[in-house]
């Protein structure tokens, strides 16, 4: 552990906005990707249900 205090850690030796701007945006980006994957899954399942209804209607 190289930091003396919590605020010391957050300050990142004066480079806080660059360091946290990097790690923070990566975290947000991966979170958004996971959200979009979950929505895409919902859409795909809806498409499967729709296809099955259409097929039943045709029979």
């Amino acid at each position, binding site marked *: *552990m*190289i*930091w003396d205090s919590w605020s010391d*850690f957050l300050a*990142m*030796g*004066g*480079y806080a906005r*660059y*360091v946290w*701007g*990097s*790690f923070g*945006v*990566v975290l947000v*980006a*991966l979170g958004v*990707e*996971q959200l979009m*994957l979950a929505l*895409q*899954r919902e*859409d*795909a*399942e809806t*498409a*499967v*249900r*729709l*296809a*099955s209804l259409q*097929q039943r209607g045709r029979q």
Partner: protein
Amino acid sequence: MSASHTLPAARPFSGGKRWLRYAAPQAFFPLAGRLLPWLLGAALLLAAAGLYLGLLVAPPDRQQGDAYRIIFIHVPAAWLSMVIYVAMAFWAGIGLVFNTRLSSMMASALAPTGALFTFLALWTGALWGKPTWGAWWVWDARLTSELLLLFLYLGFMALQAAIDDPRRADRAGAVLALAGVVNVPVIYFSVQWWNTLHQGSSLSARGASMAPIVLQAMLVMTLALWAYAIAAVLQRLRNIVLERERHTEWVRQYLAENKR
């Protein structure tokens, strides 16, 4: 459109090649689903370890102070952006030559995650460039070729989205992906071929140009992002399989048996 509605649940596979079984979407789909929790779990644990080493244990750099810590996310993201492109071109090419549906779907599943890591490599690079070079962006060979990589990913995705017939979209995308693959060695060797502002390779045949703790943290973060990327790509591949195979019996059965 009627023939595709009644695919058999399992098709005959050649006896000695059991791994080829997983080239069929209906065999691959549940396997990928079983791998997902392990991959996401590994990504979380490795990221926790890597961030601990990189942000709490590694000392500040003598010249760059704490700004250098961006390396722990920048280099792994940049490596992944290139690796994913090569994987995308490989699977697109396999799909083009052997006409295997799952290979082409794999290429489509890789593209958005590849584009995301390319964007993150550029973003973290800009945030690292500002305090160290005094500029967010320079038209340097390394940065320009990485920006071209982002446009190749976006072009691949836009091209596939513009073509309605999935198999035609696969083929058109494959041609673009394969043509763009020459850009990857250009990115990688740009720091040697041209006189660039960007620093040289962190790792080379001569070894690493950094302290052991810095190298360790960077490699652990690389493994974390690899595990995450594989998980995200498998999730997207499963979604694409569901969507494209929605008329088949096995998809309907799978969803009926695996209600969440």
